[in-house]
């Protein structure tokens, strides 16, 4: 071996006449990419030396001290796993156990679809990976289709379907005047979409607005989907996190299932189990029968194989350890409720503070909206002022991550918002 190395050194040492080609780079024409609008906020926050700074940008949960949280059920699961398991490759479709438990959460503990094996499901790289796999699958097997995306939505949705080369259209969703749902326009757009369109829905806790349809409105949407024969793809990134009750948060999906739709679902454990960096999620597609489900799953695997071969094992083990143990699962449900309740109480507190300050504007929407985010209604200019003058970091669309609010900073935040909006 030493011989090989020495020989190689001698060969290179001889000044290569035939060295690398001309001095310019292959990449000289590469433009610097724009910063990611969401993740760029945290970068700016971290760079700010001000002691008053507040980060209400990215949607990662913080406790009342503003600290990230690792759930106790997760710590316990990791203790149990550490040193026990080998790190062999998972199958391309991921951990079977984890997927089984995950489907129960979305489709129901005793779902007939699970019993009948009608669901094609694979472990995915969190919610992003699930959406991307579905988008690639849609491109391959419904090549003439488009995806309808609500306005607004999580910015990365646009990137995902664009990179999958699926053309996009939008549908009305948010109503700025009421800071609520533009239901009539939404239904119009759904009606006007060609029959059999693919439509992206946020199952609960819409990101970035926090505005969800009511149960009644979901039923009407579902009926219209039936008549139009649309395909419903649910992005469910906040199950449990919205109301504190995972069953309640899955209501929209259950309505569609009752109505006979063959839906697709992207699920993520990033927020509700605090497993952000582990990248754990699940993509599922409800099929006509078991044979179809086997076929669809095999095709999803064909798309995963040239992307990452098989999904990461660690996060999946944490999930299956927790959900597979009744006591740990109970603990998890408790901890999810604690997180959701804290957010709900911060909503109340922020609204109260703003009202007490005598703000001329209505802030009812803060408590009406649900989940991690609040669409404040502030303009980009107002947001810029918040950042420049008060060191408050959020995305320029006025989205506030409620998880970044604490009893310690809610007063400061309310005051700052009041200051930049009182003359609006």
């Amino acid at each position, binding site marked *: 071996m030493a011989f090989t190395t020495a020989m190689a050194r001698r060969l290179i040492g001889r000044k290569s006449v035939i060295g690398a080609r001309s001095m310019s780079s292959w990449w000289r024409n590469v433009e610097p990419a724009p910063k990611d609008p969401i993740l760029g906020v945290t970068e700016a926050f971290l760079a700010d030396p001000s002691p008053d700074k507040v980060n209400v940008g990215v949607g990662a949960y913080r406790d009342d001290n503003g600290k990230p949280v690792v759930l106790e059920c997760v710590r316990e699961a990791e203790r149990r796993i*550490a040193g026990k398991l080998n790190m062999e490759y998972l199958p391309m479709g991921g951990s079977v156990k984890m997927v089984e438990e995950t489907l129960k959460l979305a489709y129901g503990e005793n779902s007939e679809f699970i019993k009948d094996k009608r669901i094609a499901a694979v472990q995915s*790289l969190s919610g992003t990976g699930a959406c991307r796999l579905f988008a690639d699958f849609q491109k391959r097997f419904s090549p003439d289709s488009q995806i309808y995306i609500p306005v607004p939505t999580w910015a990365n949705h646009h990137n995902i379907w664009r*990179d999958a080369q699926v053309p996009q259209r939008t549908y009305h969703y948010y109503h700025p005047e009421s800071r609520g749902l533009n239901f009539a326009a939404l239904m119009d757009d759904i009606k006007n979409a060609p029959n059999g369109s693919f439509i992206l829905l946020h199952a609960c806790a819409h990101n970035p607005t926090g505005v969800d349809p009511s149960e009644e409105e979901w039923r009407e949407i579902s*009926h219209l989907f039936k008549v139009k024969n649309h395909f419903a793809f649910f992005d469910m990134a906040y199950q449990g996190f919205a109301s504190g009750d995972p069953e309640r948060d899955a209501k929209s999906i259950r309505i569609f299932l009752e109505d006979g739709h063959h839906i697709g679902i992207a699920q993520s454990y990033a927020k509700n189990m605090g497993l952000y960096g582990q990248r754990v999620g699940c993509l599922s597609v409800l099929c006509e029968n078991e044979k179809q489900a086997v076929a669809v799953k095999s095709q999803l695997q064909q798309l995963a194989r040239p992307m990452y071969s098989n999904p990461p094992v660690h996060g999946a083990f944490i999930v299956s350890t927790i959900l597979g143990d009744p006591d740990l699962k109970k603990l998890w449900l408790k901890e999810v409720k604690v997180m959701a309740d804290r957010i709900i109480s911060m909503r109340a507190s922020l609204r109260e503070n703003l009202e007490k300050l005598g703000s001329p504007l209505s802030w009812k929407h803060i408590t009406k909206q649900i989940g991690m985010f609040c669409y404040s209604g502030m303009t980009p200019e107002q947001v810029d002022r918040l950042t420049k003058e008060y060191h408050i970091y959020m995305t320029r669309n006025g989205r506030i991550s409620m998880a970044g609010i604490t009893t310690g900073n809610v007063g400061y935040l309310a005051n700052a918002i009041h200051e930049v909006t009182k003359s609006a």
Partner: protein
Amino acid sequence: MASDRRIGVLARHLGVEMDFESHTATAISASPTSGFQGNSVFSHVVRAPEDPILGVTVAYNKDPSPVKLNLGVGAYRTDEGKPLVLNVVRKAEQQLVNDRSRVKEYLPITGLADFNKLSAKLIFGADSPAIQENRVTTVQCLSGTGSLRVGAEFLARHYHQRTICIPQPTWGNHPKVFTLAGLSVKTYRYYDPATRGLNFQGLLEDLGSAPSGAIVLLHACAHNPTGVDPTPQQWENIRQLIRSKGLLPFFDSAYQGFASGSLDSDAQPVRMFVADGGELLVAQSYAKNMGLYGERVGALSIVCRNADVAGRVESQLKLVIRPMYSNPPIHGASIVAVILKDRNLYNEWTIELKAMADRIISMRRQLFDALRARGTPGDWSHIIKQIGMFTFTGLNSEQVAFMTKEYHIYMTYDGRISMAGLSSKTVPHLADAIHAAVTRAA
């Protein structure tokens, strides 16, 4: 009533007159093709064939025979046939678990910064001028597959030439990765079945006639599936040819340290190309050499002309990654960083790595000796000449099928066997099977 209101809303939207008295909605009925009646938009989807490599393990698992042997997928096994988690990995894991200050937040899109720096040092050498000049951008990716895919997507968007030349044969997943990324795949001659060695002339000819600027996939060491590597002199010739033709090298480094037992030796081909000042891409994997298979740990490095270019390239890599999975998984990369950072753990790792490589080399020796002892017809010296985890036996698909049926040996149809799946106990069984296949089957 709620249902009336629902139907009324629908009627309004569809512009239909409603008769509420009779509660009928004659103009509204589920369309014949509505989801309501159970037709899936994906009814036409047919079942995909099993992955040829991973499918071997599926078939193996189904077999009830007590003498079955899995020589399919390239995952290391001990001499007892068990998967191995390295001691250093267990130690690193324990450290991570015990550290209560650790959180599970999102990594940046480019992954764990420490991991990236250490990975670059590992492949390029700590004293690499490219690193010192900040000309290297490294992003954490999902093992080798993910690194190849991200690199290929970047090239498809930003490089002027869409053709990638891959060796014949190569890892079965390579063509799929590059095709889905938007590149167009051509092959260059590599393996010579007659000698069971390198078709060096063919390789030079094919690379010499590649389209200008084409990307060239090179296996850094321990070529998969053949185990046939160029000699240092041959690497130098390849380097000269590639540079003189303005081709772009893209290294797949999945076995650093695993081939010869020395991390530095196995990195020589890559370092040779960096030393001439040119640009290149490297996909690194820790699946085999750190036994982190399922954790999906790897890194893509792009060596650029200068730091400014490297910075811009990195920003564009983020745009590839964000819509694919946002940011990479934290666990495996954290383990690697702990080990590479700590001198003692690093040294322990090199020792465990050499032990794995040595066991494989000894399996080669044992199999070769066993075949010679049986007087099996043919020249089997390639078994000890080839390097790394795999041996390209030269057996054809009929012989492979025979070995599976009669001897319960599971391997890929191209005749590739994973030496890592062999043990001193099972070598005789495999030798018997090969002997029978060669003397009795086609």
